[in-house]
């Protein structure tokens, strides 16, 4: 340790600590304009000057390392004068066109000018009294630029390069003509801006500002919350004024993201106040007509707005009727990866306790069910083993496969760019040349659907060259001989033939990935959404066990969960085969535990024969939707999901929904699915309720009530509880078990119930969350510190199990009739079915239309120009979208997204073929053709 003295106070600091940091540790605030702890110090604003005893001139504290015995003065007359001089000099060119700034919060620069009384002392004779640059001349819908307020601290330049890895901002010209520029003096978007807003977040003057918040006023309060888009789990502050969100601002102490955010998190919040929000319950008219409401019309008829009493009455009556007639097996519950842990817990409780069925599932089926199944088979736990920051900081090499990380998990994508910039080699294996490939040392472009062959090929080379970890395999795994036998068949020659990757590239990638320890594997839907999804996941698990990369920092198997709370929805048992915490429904001991906790007493006149819980795993999302047409499912209770958009082969899915007798949809917008619903219950967004989300790295983080829900909309946990009570009443049952009742005054009451029934969440109590703890499950008791890395020393299932898996081709491959291979995914600016992002004005302004990526080869062959409207067709439907001619896709491959409804939805084309184990559809491969272009 090094001892220094600051203004008479002594402090011991570790070597390398700067004087600025030492002062911070003492709670002193040295003024600065160009420095931030996240950014490399440049020492150019000269505000943070301090005096060191024995030194003849003041020094910048932001970059000066402490040395033992240093005596530092942070405040003196001469320092005050020097700082005042700096501000006076800056005021020479600083020019704020606004005459009145009472409408917005004070900037750091304004605060310092006030503190140092610099405005009054400046010589006005030389002040630049006029505007030098055009104001607000850039067309970025999120960021407003006024260079007249720029003091050239270059925080934006460093934030863009060091945090976001985007290098949009730089500096041009010199002397007092110096200014920040985008790219080669282009617009922000032209220069490759991803609109993450980091530049504006760090700006101390308002030269770069959030456009949506401009002139929105000063917030009444800041509410810390967790993002409702992807599974990274960013936290930030909602700025609330007059009960509306006026801005989202960074929270430097956010556990996952710090100051960083992506465009959706920072600027995609306006959907909350969108005019199309559902504000009153609605039911179909036929349900209000006592005479014939049992026979609904074919088109379900018109909507009627009703109050909650009527809506819940009608809904519970219908659900009770179906339950009594056909039993729970004819009913399905679709929970939501967008809703809280508490709400997911209640949805599965609703299915299992009240409807006595395991027919509960959610969209994890469509994204990572193969991961959950595969990793559970191999290791015993179907979640990301390591943490994002751990990988970014500690991995010696990274394999990214089937994850378009910088677009789908943008903040983690930026962390991976930082990893690349620190010298960590990244190998991207993806049929598309995605953005992160620009930061990779190698891009392996395998043919879609050939992942097992690729991974087996890597393992073949690892074994051949002795790169495997024999000790790890012997001590911690089983099934190695079977694996070896299969992998032997995957010679580089054969793998090259299957995957299209050259033998040389395969060898180079294998050497790089297998010899760097630890190596982390990251994947997402490119791996999981195949009929071989489970096999793909098993292969990656095999690879990491073979190399001994499990249970160590910087390694692991790392599936990136898509939705904000898809991890939590799985954790809470919104799955047909497990209770909360992955406790199996077919385990009698477990089933008895829940049966007792949730026990209901039937009234005397009610048949009470099935008091035990259903021990048969229920139906999956796809089976439940199909069940409507097949006649085995009569009702669906859907929370915050949009199967009409997101199911594969959406024409078929819509037909199934249309055939389902009774659909209750609890939503925030009239989604595509609402067309098929009989009841619409208005729920609340993440900003309008309390609860917790669990992010991709198993971190449980709270959301807070920031603004009231519009109209009569209610928090979803409250709606489900009310409905549950009514169905219980109608079916003549009363709560008996300890946790049988549905009397929740607040979300925390639900969490306490979860704590009691879920070992891995036992220590994640409302008290610890309220105290600011950021815990990663398993947290098995109130003092457990959480588990950043899984499988340390021992796999959850004991020994890790190798599974010998063989390559199988995708179900529908191109042929003469349908010569193109379609693969699907998302884009940065939109989110899944687009329900929220299409109602965020800025996001839609940047990306207003469905796009299909086409290789230049195919475009030339079919005389398609960039921007043409084209029609693609498969055996199941057609897609109408704009052509984006790009090298991101290889010849013969096209890529579409599912953000836009109706004719623009790529799921009109996709195939409903399922993985036999996980029942995940093969979104990533089907055969299509051009229907002509216009």
């Amino acid at each position, binding site marked *: 340790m090094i001892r220094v003295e600051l203004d008479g106070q002594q402090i011991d600091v570790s070597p390398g600590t700067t004087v600025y940091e030492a002062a911070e540790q003492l709670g002193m605030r040295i003024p600065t304009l160009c420095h931030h702890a996240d950014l490399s110090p440049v020492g150019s604003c000269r505000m943070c000057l301090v005096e060191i005893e024995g030194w003849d001139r003041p020094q910048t504290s932001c970059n000066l390392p402490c040395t033992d015995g240093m005596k530092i003065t942070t405040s003196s007359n001469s320092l005050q004068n020097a700082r005042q001089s700096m501000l006076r000099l800056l005021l020479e060119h600083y020019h704020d066109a606004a005459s009145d700034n009472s409408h917005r919060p004070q900037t750091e620069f304004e605060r310092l000018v006030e503190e140092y009384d610099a405005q009054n002392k400046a010589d006005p004779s030389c002040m630049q009294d006029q505007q030098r640059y055009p104001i607000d001349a850039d067309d970025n819908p999120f960021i407003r630029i006024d260079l007249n307020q720029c003091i050239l601290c270059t925080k934006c330049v460093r934030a863009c390069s060091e945090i976001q890895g985007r290098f949009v901002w730089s500096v041009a*010209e010199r*002397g007092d003509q110096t200014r920040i520029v985008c790219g080669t003096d282009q617009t922000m978007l032209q220069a490759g801006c991803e609109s993450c807003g980091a530049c504006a977040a760090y700006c101390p003057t308002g030269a770069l500002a959030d456009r949506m918040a401009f002139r929105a006023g000063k917030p009444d309060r800041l509410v810390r919350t967790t993002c409702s888009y992807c599974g990274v789990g960013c936290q930030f502050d909602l700025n609330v004024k007059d009960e509306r969100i006026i801005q989202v601002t960074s929270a430097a102490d956010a556990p996952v993201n710090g100051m960083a955010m992506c465009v959706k998190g920072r600027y995609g919040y306006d959907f909350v106040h969108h005019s199309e929000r559902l504000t009153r319950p609605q039911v179909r008219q036929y349900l209000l007509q006592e005479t014939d409401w049992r026979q609904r019309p074919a088109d379900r008829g018109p909507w009627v707005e009703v109050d909650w009493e009527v809506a819940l009455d009608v809904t519970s009556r219908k659900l009770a009727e179906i339950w009594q007639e056909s039993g729970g097996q004819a009913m399905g519950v679709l929970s939501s990866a967008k809703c809280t842990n508490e709400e997911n817990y209640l949805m599965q409780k609703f299915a299992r306790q009240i409807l006595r069925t395991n027919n509960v599932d959610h969209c994890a089926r469509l994204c990572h069910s193969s991961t959950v199944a595969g990793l559970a088979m191999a290791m015993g736990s179907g979640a990301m083993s390591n943490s994002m920051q751990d990988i970014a900081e500690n991995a010696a090499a990274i394999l990214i496969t089937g994850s378009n990380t910088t677009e789908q998990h943008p903040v983690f994508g930026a962390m991976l760019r930082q990893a690349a910039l620190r010298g960590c080699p990244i190998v991207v294996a993806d049929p598309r040349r995605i953005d992160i490939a620009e930061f990779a040392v190698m891009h392996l472009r395998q043919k879609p659907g050939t992942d097992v062959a690729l991974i087996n090929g890597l393992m073949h080379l690892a074994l051949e060259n002795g790169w495997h970890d024999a000790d790890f395999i012997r001590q911690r795994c089983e099934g190695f001989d079977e694996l070896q036998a299969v992998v032997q068949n995957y010679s580089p020659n054969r793998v090259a033939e299957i995957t299209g990757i050259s033998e040389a590239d395969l060898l180079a990638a294998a050497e790089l990935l297998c010899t760097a320890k630890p190596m982390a594997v990251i994947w997402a839907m490119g791996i999981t959404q195949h009929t071989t999804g489970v096999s793909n996941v098993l292969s990656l698990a095999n690879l990491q066990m073979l190399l001994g990369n499990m249970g160590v920092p910087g390694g692991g198997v790392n599936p990136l969960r898509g939705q904000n709370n898809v991890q939590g929805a799985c954790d809470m048992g919104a799955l047909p085969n497990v209770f909360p915490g992955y406790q199996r429904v077919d385990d009698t001991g477990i089933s008895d535990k829940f049966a007792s906790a949730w026990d209901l007493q039937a009234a005397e006149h009610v048949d009470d024969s099935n008091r035990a819980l259903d021990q048969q795993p229920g139906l999956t999302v796809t089976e439940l939707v199909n069940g409507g047409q097949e006649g085995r499912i009569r009702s669906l209770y859907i929370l915050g999901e949009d199967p009409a958009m997101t199911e594969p082969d959406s024409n078929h899915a819509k037909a199934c929904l249309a055939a389902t007798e009774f659909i209750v949809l609890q939503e925030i917008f009239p989604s595509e699915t609402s067309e098929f619903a009989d009841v619409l219950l208005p729920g609340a967004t993440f900003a309008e309720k309390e609860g917790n989300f669990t992010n991709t790295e198993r971190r449980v983080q709270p959301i807070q009530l920031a603004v009231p829900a519009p109209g009569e909309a209610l928090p979803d946990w409250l709606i489900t509880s009310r409905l549950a009570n009514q169905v219980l009443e109608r079916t003549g049952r009363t709560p008996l078990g300890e946790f049988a009742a549905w009397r929740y005054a607040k979300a925390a009451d639900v969490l306490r119930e979860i704590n009691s029934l879920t070992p891995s969440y036992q220590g994640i109590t409302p008290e610890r969350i309220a105290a600011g703890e950021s815990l990663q499950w398993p947290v098995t008791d109130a003092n457990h510190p959480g588990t950043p890395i899984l499988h340390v020393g021992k796999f959850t299932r004991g020994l890790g199990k190798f599974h010998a898996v063989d390559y199988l081709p995708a179900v529908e491959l191109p042929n003469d009739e349908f010569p193109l291979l379609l693969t699907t995914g998302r884009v940065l600016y939109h989110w899944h079915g687009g329900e929220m992002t299409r109602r965020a004005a800025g996001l839609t302004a940047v990306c207003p239309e469905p796009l299909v990526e086409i290789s230049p080869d195919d475009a030339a062959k079919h005389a398609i120009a960039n921007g043409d409207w084209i029609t693609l067709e498969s055996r199941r439907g057609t897609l109408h979208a704009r052509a984006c001619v790009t090298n991101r896709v290889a010849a013969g491959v096209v890529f579409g997204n599912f953000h836009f409804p109706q004719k623009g939805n790529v799921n009109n084309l996709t195939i409903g073929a399922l993985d036999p184990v996980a029942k995940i559809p093969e979104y990533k491969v089907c055969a299509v053709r051009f229907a002509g272009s216009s």
Partner: protein
Amino acid sequence: MAEFEPVLLANINRPNSFTRKEYEATGGYQSWKKVLSMDRNDVIDIVKSSNLRGRGGAGFPTGLKWTFLPKDHPGPIYFCLNADESEPGTFNNRILMEQDPHQVLEGLMISSYATRTSTAYIYLRYEYPGCNKRLQDAIDECYAAGYLGDNIQGSGYSLNIYIHQGAAAYICGEETGLIESIEGKRAWPRIKPPFPAIEGVFRKPTVVNNVETVACVKHILDRGADWFKSMGVPADPNNPRDAGSYGPKLYCLSGHVEKPGCYEAPLGLTARQLIEDFGGGCWKGRSVKAVIPGGISMGLLGPDELDCPLDFAGPGKYGCLGLGTAAAVVIDDQTSIVDFLHNSARFFAHESCGQCTPCREGTSWALKMLNRIKAGRGRLKDLDLLAEIGDTIGIIPGTTICGLSDGAAWPIKNAIKKFRGEFEHYIKRTNPDGYMVTDPVPVFETTAH
């Protein structure tokens, strides 16, 4: 001075002085061949004991600088030859590189060998295409002769030299700005520490030396440290921080003299000697009003200060910033100091790199005030404001990363202090109605260009 035999300029007037053949005919590359079998530390010791100080401006002891390199560094270590000669009035490097490039290369090669460098960059001023050609030809000749490349002369030592052309920015002469520029970045000087010897080009240990400095190294290896120390001004025994001013020096003389040019003399001749003995006196029979002792960033000597010795210690004693590049610019008695300062301010406002607040804003503020004074709207109060800016900006008051704005400040400080009367007279004459005004005056629109 008559007995002094030119060292650095000895051969520049010989026909084809820039060819290897001519260079070797006068004993060139003998030291290079000799050095290749020497212990590196012995080479450094010779340079250290010569007390050679850097010729680029700051006068830092060269041998000492080399010893700052980490001892057991696995490499690479880089050598940067600072040939970004941009200080107004300075052209000695140009003459060396154009007329005797092999002398420079031999010095660079010896210096690279001593510092365990295998890659040397010559950072060459963009405006010197002639130097570029002569240097590249000379480098090519050296490769052909086996003086450069791999395993030179069977010694096991390898050295490659590359010319990196600048893009016309004064700041690239600052050693860390130069390093950033070599890396392909904007030449914004780095904060120090770490100094280049620890983290320089590509974050590897790096030495940055001036062209004339390495040329001196060649001659020190030729003739020994004692020979070198036989010239110049010994260290002041009463000042332990004075390292002395030894060896020959190239003085660039320009401005209002009869015979401007580059002259070589032992360090320590006075400004008067340079002007009278070498330059033939002030031109057109006029008298000297002021002399810039070493490039305009060093400030001004007044007419009564011409006996200032032009060695490393001399100009400082007369209130100037230092010897600088030893480029003396003579200003005659019919030239306005107001014009001089305006011109100087224009230069520095244009060349400020824009990184540090005080330099970027201070140089442009000073220029704006001088623009206003020149436009007949000056106030006496402006002189105090100018002096205040002069005192505020630069490394010396601790407010900038590099020394550029010290160089901008010194002409202001010296001019206002030594010629205040002329400024006051100018302001009163040109702004008879307003010179006493202290109220704010409307901005006079201008740019720094």
